[in-house]
């Protein structure tokens, strides 16, 4: 390990025809870094990850690797269910990566243990659940211990237990010095990875820290909702910084920062809450 940056993107722009997907993206990843990329659907998160991985070209800018033999592990948003067992699949991927046979066998056994898949090692992947496939997805990316692990929506569609397990595995991988770059949707998980969060908005990458410093000082959001007590309990446990009070007609008025209100709205609607009104207010002059 050294202090040299693993991957550096400098003013990278990606354009499809006239449509600019990414604009002047500059990002540097070092050993042990963990960056979370967030943004709405179609904001260009996957495109950015694929550019960092070197899977697709970019229109302008520079991508510099710290050294030519850098190992990049990549997990796409979903692994296709193949007609082979996870062991067969990992043997194929390992051999393609030129992992020595003996080391490969040992690593595959170790990974099956680490991801609790030992009892399914002889089952074909077409019979795997989404969570099991996601584990194999992460296993293939970490076969050859990567310098940089790139994850595209690693928690999408996983149940709570699988999510916690994956999170624990990612924490272990991160602790070993592997840099992690992940695009995630879930607001909660970003915080648990002890990471730096970036938002992709209109193709521009903005650090959450910088954004919140700028915007939290300017605006707050008042949202009036109808919801059941259990939904209220859930939201208050998730968004610690918000304030709330009951208003007439059984509605509840929440006050949130710029940083939280989008996630709050999504969480509220998904939990069956009903939005009555939303207002942006200047929080200080």
């Amino acid at each position, binding site marked *: 390990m050294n202090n040299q940056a693993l991957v550096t993107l400098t003013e990278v722009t990606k354009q499809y025809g006239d449509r600019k997907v990414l604009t002047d993206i500059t990002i540097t990843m070092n050993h042990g870094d963990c960056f979370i990329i967030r943004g709405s659907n179609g904001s260009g998160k996957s495109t950015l990850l694929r550019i960092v991985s070197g899977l697709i070209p970019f229109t302008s800018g520079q991508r510099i690797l710290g050294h030519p033999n850098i190992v990049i592990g990549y997990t796409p948003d979903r692994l*296709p269910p193949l007609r082979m067992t996870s062991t067969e699949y990992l043997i194929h991927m390992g051999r393609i990566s030129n992992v020595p046979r003996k080391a490969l066998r040992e690593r595959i056994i170790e990974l099956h243990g680490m991801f609790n898949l030992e009892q399914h090692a002889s089952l074909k992947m077409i019979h795997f659940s989404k969570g099991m496939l996601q584990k194999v997805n992460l296993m293939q990316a970490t076969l050859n211990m990567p310098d940089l692990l790139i994850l595209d929506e690693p928690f999408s569609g996983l149940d709570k237990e699988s999510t916690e397990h994956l999170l624990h595995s990612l924490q272990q991988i991160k602790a070993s010095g592997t840099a992690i770059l992940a695009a995630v949707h879930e607001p909660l998980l970003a915080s648990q990875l002890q990471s730096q969060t970036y938002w992709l908005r209109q193709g521009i990458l903005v650090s959450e820290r910088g954004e919140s410093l700028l915007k939290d000082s300017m605006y707050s959001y008042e949202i009036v909702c109808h919801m059941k007590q259990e939904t209220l309990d859930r939201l208050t446990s998730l968004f610690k910084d918000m304030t709330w009070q009951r208003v007439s007609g059984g509605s509840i008025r929440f006050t949130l920062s710029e940083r939280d209100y989008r996630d709050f709205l999504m969480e509220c609607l998904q939990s069956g809450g009903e939005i009555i009104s939303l207002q942006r207010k200047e929080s200080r002059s």
Partner: protein
Amino acid sequence: MISLISFLHTCFMRSYRYGPPTFIYILGIIFVYSVVPNPVMDSYAFSTIFLFIVSTALCYMIIEIETPNQESITLLHSGSIVKLYLGKLLYSWIFTFPLALYAVLYPAVLHRFDRSPSLEELSVAFLYHIASSWLGVALACWFGSKFIRSRVISFIVLSVLIVTTISVQAIQNSLPDGVKKAVLLLPPLHTTIETYMNYETATLFTKLVVAGSSFLYGALVAALFLVIIHRRKLDSSHG
């Protein structure tokens, strides 16, 4: 490269997509030789064209054997998109070797010809079969979804190209004298067929040059494909 081809082979075998073209080819050869006797080189000319068509179908499927997500994973493990696609092209071609051997040996072993073919005839026929299948592979690789998004359009255009390749002689005859040479740009399958038809009078040099021209044409077309895929990587026209 061997491990990459081994993975592609496992995927292709377990997808059962090889079934229809291979089955049609095997049955087609049996059907053609169900009536005896048959002229040796004319019959091999037919099976060479047949294998050319089947090889395009096989490559058309093998080039898309992985889903886009799996292809991204395989690419990062193999380390190079050129290596990945070269593996797909080579696997498509190698897959046709047993089919070529079958087309050459089946009628010879089961005495379906009007005479016994010589060893030279058997060797040249095998060479022509695999040269033509290489030509088919090199042409079909352009019709994956990387270059033509619509599978219907790519299938139609590939079919037109196959028909054009088989009918080069007829096209040449119908062209005005000034542009007759334009057919040199088309895949040289017709030179193989002509050599089969005039096998007795052709010199050994001509016979080898004919096979070489198919290999060379295929290699140039495949190399151009690899250069372009290297520049585009896994990019597609949609975001």
